[in-house]
């Protein structure tokens, strides 16, 4: 029953976020600040992870091709498919649930503990709109980060495949172009938009409704990471069934 109540209050929170909007002249700098912190501030870790994940996929594919009848361009093909369909949108989102999600929960949670949210409410400000709406808008730019992750991941695969001696550059590039379906990229971007909404809202919910002190802020961050990850994985499964099944 507690889980159902939490899910219910989560959706009520989302409705409240869009009520009584804050003035644009106040909201605009907040959105820009969140884009800087949530998107640009995460590009480093996204690029780092994507590069090495792409490399690992390439190497593992190469090491599993034992049959000489299987063409070597499969390495490029498998790297492209794995990175575009799963690793860039889903794996990166799990990492972002940890990095960005924890930041969101702890920053909003600290505001709750120090009565800053009460101060907003007493002034007559819709605190949910003021705090959560800029994060949702900022994370709508998340697909751009995912596009970078896709490119860097494939590049990492090429580096590992070619410089590791598993494939020639020509074979790898041929594999990249083989049976390319543009819809797979669309599917990946659709997923990343939904994951962005999850990353913006579930940690906000855990931060906004937390009770207690500094210790509970830490606990709320951990709980929010777990639930954000669970929501991403379940949404990933449902979307894959709906869009590719």
């Amino acid at each position: 029953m507690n889980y159902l109540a939490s899910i219910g209050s989560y959706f009520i929170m989302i409705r409240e976020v869009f009520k009584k909007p804050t003035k644009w002249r106040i909201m605009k700098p907040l959105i820009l600040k969140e884009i800087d912190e949530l998107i640009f501030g995460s590009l480093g870790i996204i690029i780092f992870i994507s590069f090495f994940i792409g490399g690992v996929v390439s190497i593992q594919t190469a090491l599993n091709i034992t049959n000489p009848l299987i063409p070597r361009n499969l390495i490029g093909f498998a790297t492209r498919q794995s990175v575009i369909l799963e690793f860039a949108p889903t794996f990166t989102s799990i990492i972002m649930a940890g990095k960005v999600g924890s930041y969101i929960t702890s920053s909003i949670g600290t505001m709750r503990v120090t009565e800053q949210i009460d101060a907003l409410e007493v002034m007559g400000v819709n605190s949910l709109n003021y705090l959560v709406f800029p994060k949702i808008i900022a994370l709508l730019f998340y697909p751009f980060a995912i596009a970078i992750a896709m490119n860097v991941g494939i590049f990492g695969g090429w580096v590992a495949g070619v410089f590791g001696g598993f494939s020639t550059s020509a074979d790898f590039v041929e594999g990249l172009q083989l049976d390319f379906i543009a819809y797979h990229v669309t599917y990946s971007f659709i997923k990343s938009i939904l994951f962005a909404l999850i990353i913006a809202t579930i940690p906000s919910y855990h931060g906004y409704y937390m009770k207690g002190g500094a210790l509970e802020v830490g606990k709320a961050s951990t709980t929010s990471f777990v639930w954000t990850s669970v929501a991403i994985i379940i949404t990933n499964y449902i979307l894959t069934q709906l869009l590719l099944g």
Partner: protein
Amino acid sequence: MIQVNDLHKSFGENKILKGVTTSFEKGKTNLIIGQSGSGKTVFLKCLLGLFEPETGYICYDDRTYSSLSADEKRDLRQEMGMVFQGSALFDSMTVEGNVMFPLEMFTKQSKSEMQDRVNTVLKRVNLDNAHEKYPAEISGGMQKRVAIARAIVMNPKYLFCDEPNSGLDPKTAILIDNLIQEITEEYDITTVINTHDMNSVMEIGQKILFLKNGHKEWEGTNKEIFKTDNEAVTDFVYSSELFKKVRQMYIEERN
């Protein structure tokens, strides 16, 4: 003026407020005192509209809070200023940003008009040279003064303070108390202060409400609190040796 009538508030089975009736007068510092767990904070949060009471009502100058629409409630809240126990300043903003925030949010004033108003209130609380500092860079007493400046920047009709001098040294605490009283009289505000501090009770308690176990146990002024025979009040107020001696001297002088 704020009138409270038969206010009840519970959390589950736990009854916190059990029918509090009182009134807080305009232009006066009204104090709420009582032991921890007596319902002071819940009472203050009911006054602020952060908690909805189960029964009873609160009138703000003849406007009954429970019968107002959501928009009217938000408008009423803009007539309230609040000084939180921990100041509740926005960490990400400078002192000036904190004080300017309500103006930016709710008025259509130009930047220069807002700046003038911010300068005026910061000067009023004796904080002329901290505009660009962040809350973490200033002392607790200065944070309280910024919180007071933010609370009065919109010219509120009602000012609420939750333990405004907790965590401050006695000298700074008196300065904060005096500042609140001066502002109350100067701006003709209805001020309600939740406090544990007996110095505040003696110094600025123009009206005192003593809560015990969610009930109104006693109310009166700081002059009357010396004379009261209410055992619960005397136990609470004169719990320290110093105050016991002060009271004894007062009684002896009177006799």
